[in-house]
């Protein structure tokens, strides 16, 4: 008597399906019961590995230049020298403006002292798909959620969104569909821009408003920060609005260090306070 062989193909798909469902349910539950447990422990494991990567790229990154031709290197060197000399001139004029800005703020009694922490970038896009940076400082440096992340002295690129024991995650302002209220520095026009990922922004303003390529977008208020530069303006004759495309003026894939601004502390000039006290006391005495 012949028997047909029983197919175990159904079991073949059933078993992995059950295992995967269990894993997914456990992970989702774990994330809700103790949201920080998995990220904290994985960041603890990953931090030394990312540090090794930084060390290796720092030590051996220059090895590439050994395999490049001399002519390319000379050309690149000349270009860089030219750029440096141009930037030096710009830097000089910037220094004058910074001094003038500080003097003006002092005159109105508003001096800001910065409370910043330098941090190394451990991972950056395109490694992370959500437009986030992993930084090598966390709760150990009193970093808090909402702290601003700045490159150089004035380029505001993101905010701290997660803090672990010795790492933190910064989400870029350009993360997808993230709305941001900014001002066009040249005209003072307030606009709402939306993040498009990868350091790009998009906004819509009425067609009558003059926006030029190269316009600087800054956050409103008294600060020395800039967020993006208008890279192009798209005008459709049938549309009553024009589209503005902005870009962070630095390649986010190559940023190695950032500063975390733990909050600006407003220092009211003591001289002005005294002067205000005097005027208020004199007006009070006059009233009497």
């Amino acid at each position, binding site marked *: 008597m012949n028997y047909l062989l029983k197919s175990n193909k159904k079991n*073949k798909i059933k078993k992995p399906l059950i295992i995967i469902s269990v894993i997914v349910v456990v992970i989702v539950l774990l994330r809700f019961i103790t949201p920080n447990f998995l990220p904290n422990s994985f960041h603890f494991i990953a931090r030394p590995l990312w540090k090794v990567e930084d060390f290796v790229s720092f030590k051996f990154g220059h090895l590439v230049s050994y395999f490049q031709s001399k002519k390319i290197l000379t050309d690149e060197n000349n270009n860089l020298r030219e750029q440096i000399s141009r930037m030096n001139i710009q830097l000089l004029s910037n220094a004058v403006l910074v001094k003038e800005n500080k003097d003006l703020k002092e005159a109105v009694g508003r001096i800001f002292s910065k409370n910043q922490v330098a941090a190394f970038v451990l991972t950056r896009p*395109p490694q992370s798909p959500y437009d986030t940076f992993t930084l090598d400082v966390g709760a150990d440096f009193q970093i808090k959620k909402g702290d601003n992340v700045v490159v150089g002295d004035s380029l505001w690129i993101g905010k701290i969104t997660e803090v672990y024991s010795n790492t933190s995650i910064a*989400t870029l302002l350009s993360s997808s569909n993230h709305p941001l209220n900014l001002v066009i520095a040249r005209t003072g026009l307030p606009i709402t821009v939306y993040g498009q990922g990868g350091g790009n922004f998009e906004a819509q303003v009425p067609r009558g408003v003059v926006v030029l390529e190269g316009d600087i977008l800054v956050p409103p208020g008294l600060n020395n920060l800039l967020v993006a530069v208008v890279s192009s303006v798209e005008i459709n004759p049938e549309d009553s609005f024009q589209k503005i495309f902005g870009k962070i003026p630095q390649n986010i894939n190559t940023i190695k260090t950032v500063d975390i601004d733990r909050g600006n502390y407003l220092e009211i000039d003591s001289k002005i306070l005294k002067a205000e006290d005097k005027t208020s006391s004199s007006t009070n005495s006059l009233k009497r």
Partner: protein
Amino acid sequence: MKNNLLRIIGGIVLFIMVFYGPWWLFLFSALAFMFLFDNYYEAIVASVFFDALNGVISPRFSIKNFLFLISISCAFVLIIYIKRHLSFYSD
């Protein structure tokens, strides 16, 4: 034996991708290894790592918290189903 060795090497490559590679290369290699090896659970574990390292925790349920876990799990089931219907993989 050779297959096991390849599987272990694949696992190491996948975990290197989690820490150092761009997200799209990680996703591509996970899919490739799931096609190459039977029941490649390493990809699921790696995706848990990836989400925990790069994801941002939100107070509400958001698919963004488990984007890689869910997409790789779906791909895992789909690949088993496809392999079942391919004569190349039939036992």
